[in-house]
């Protein structure tokens, strides 16, 4: 018994050591999120317009405005409002939207999947296509593909996603009529049940193939716009990283052993070349979130971006703040995940 007690403190410190990194990053994430929350709260109280009046409507009389003010708890001292706000968040109560007259949390649940559909489709395409093209460019630098890529990547960075979206819309939807002009899958028209909220997945789950086809077609233009705006960076970075990796002595050593060129490219060079690319992808995810808002506006895609945009135009500040919060959280989590990937790729980095 006493021997266990003697060993306990040692064991405890070992546990502490192992969990330390996790705990500290978790704590840090909380700090960041809390800061975002507080900042949004401060900003929400900075608005020049009177929120009570906005909620009551511009026609409302003074008494009604005061009623609304009481209802919304806006007459309370600031600190109390802050405490309520914080507790509300923990209860997932993000207030009501003036526009939709619904709790914001419900709005978010409704609009989030469509945005996720766009973001995931775009992100995966950018990642895989970007890396693939970058590798091909590094491997076959004199090919036609490489020459056209070098032109494209210079222009690619300069293409604003909203303009490209607009142009794509005009050419391929309005004129050539190949893709729908706006929106995602019209659920009711195809009688598809909304399970996840994502057109593509729901139509598969319902076994409705024509609906699936429509959903995919609806995705094409917005995703293309997003991809075009971001992929140039990935391609260029992959290529330069691969090119410098392929120069390294160990590559020649593998060649000397008689390993085939494609094997070397994929299993040796790529693995080491991906490090900076992954870092950049983490950054690009953030940029992609911003681009998604623009794309949703152009294509009237019913996602969070469009929701935020409408809320913003009508000074509906609850949704705006809620979205800021949600995006901050998503963003922080994704970044954490990315930084956890490094030791996996490079065994030299100690965890």
């Amino acid at each position, binding site marked *: 018994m006493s021997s266990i007690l003697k060993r306990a403190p040692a064991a405890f410190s070992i546990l502490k050591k192992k969990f330390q990194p996790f705990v500290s990053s978790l704590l840090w994430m909380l700090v960041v999120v809390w800061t975002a929350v507080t900042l949004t709260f401060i900003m929400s109280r900075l608005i020049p317009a009177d929120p009570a009046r906005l909620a009551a409507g511009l026609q409302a009389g003074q008494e009604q405005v005061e009623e609304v003010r009481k209802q919304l708890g806006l007459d309370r001292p600031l600190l109390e409002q802050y405490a309520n706000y914080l507790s509300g968040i923990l209860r997932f109560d993000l207030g009501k939207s003036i526009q939709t007259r619904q709790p914001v949390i419900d709005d978010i649940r409704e609009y989030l999947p469509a945005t996720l559909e766009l973001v995931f489709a775009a992100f995966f395409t950018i990642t895989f296509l970007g890396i693939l093209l970058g590798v091909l460019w590094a491997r076959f*630098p004199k090919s036609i593909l490489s020459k056209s890529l070098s032109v494209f990547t210079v222009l690619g960075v300069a293409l604003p996603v909203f303009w490209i979206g607009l142009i794509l819309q005009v050419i391929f939807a309005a004129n050539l009529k190949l893709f729908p002009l706006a929106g995602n899958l019209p659920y009711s028209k195809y009688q598809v049940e909304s399970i996840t909220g994502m057109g593509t997945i729901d139509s598969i789950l319902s076994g409705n193939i024509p609906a699936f086809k429509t959903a995919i077609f609806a995705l094409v233009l917005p995703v293309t716009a997003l991809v075009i705006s971001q992929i140039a960076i990935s391609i260029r970075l992959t290529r330069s990283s691969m090119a410098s990796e392929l*120069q*390294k*002595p*160990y590559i*020649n*050593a*593998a*060649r*000397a*052993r*008689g*390993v*085939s*060129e494609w*094997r070397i490219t994929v*299993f*040796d060079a790529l*693995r*080491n070349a991906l490090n900076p690319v992954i870092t950049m992808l983490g950054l690009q995810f953030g940029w992609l979130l911003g681009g998604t808002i623009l794309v949703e506006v152009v294509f009237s895609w019913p996602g969070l971006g469009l929701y935020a945009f409408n809320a913003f135009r009508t000074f509906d500040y609850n949704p705006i703040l809620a979205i800021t919060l949600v995006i901050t959280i998503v963003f922080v989590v994704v970044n954490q995940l990315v930084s956890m990937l490094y030791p996996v*790729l*490079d*065994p*030299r980095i100690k965890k």
Partner: protein
Amino acid sequence: MVDYKVIVESLSVSYRGNHIPALSNVSFALEDAECLGIVGESGSGKSTAALAVMGLLGRNAELSANSIKVGSCDVLKARKKALLSLRRSFVGVVFQDPSASWNPSRKIVDQLLQPFPRKDHQHLREKLIGYMEQVGIEKAQERIGVYPHNLSGGMLQRIMIAGALLSEPQLLIADEPTSALDVTVQADLLGLLSHLQRQRSLSMLMISHNLAVVAKISNRVLVMYAGTIVEAGPTKNVLLRPMHPYTKSLLASVPGVEKERKKPLDTTVSALVALSGCPYSSRCVSAIDICHTRKPELREIQGAQVACHRAEELESNSVISR
């Protein structure tokens, strides 16, 4: 009939962006079970020659030759598959810098077994452990599954040698295998290479900038300067009776011996290469007019080959004192 493992005829290589060619019209041959040493300072083209033999020159190298034959394979004309199988079964290569010649994110064993089909991996693994023990690595079983950064330079080189032997090659190319190592480790490694060469009757190309290293292990020596062979012959001949002024100064540049030189030996070759005539003429103590205008050809003198206009005359004069 002499069996040649490597025949190189009129090999010229230049790298894009350099107006001085890395190799000009070099020809040599390696006999069966012979160890040929190639000596020269950096920039002399020795590594280029060895790599060219295997078709391992980079993308920005322009290569032209009458023929390059390794075993029965014509490297210049060979198809990809033939070249790969040549590298897998006929030739083994040991590279210079152990810290850079391994993929840092893959285990040693994975890298060595990579060229072989999956089904052979099991028994090749055991074979590799056996070889590793032969080259003097203890606890080979454990060491095989680690990452390169866990091992010392000397150990990595030994493993590279073991790996090179894995396919039972008939030819071993060692490109400055000891240059990146400590002196004591160098000696060990050289002894190992020498032993292996004799034991297995390997044909070997030994490249080094260090004449002592080459002398210890080679039967014959090629001395290179600025992309050309300036002297060639049996090791004893070249060492004891050097004929080319450059060879003489190489031998004389052993530390502790004061020699009269036109220019110090450690400036880079490209800065001083004469563009016409003998490439060594700008540094040669014994250069005369013809040396600056006409390029000397390799000719046979007293059992060795020299590319120098004044070889015989300098030989008879014995100008250089030891």
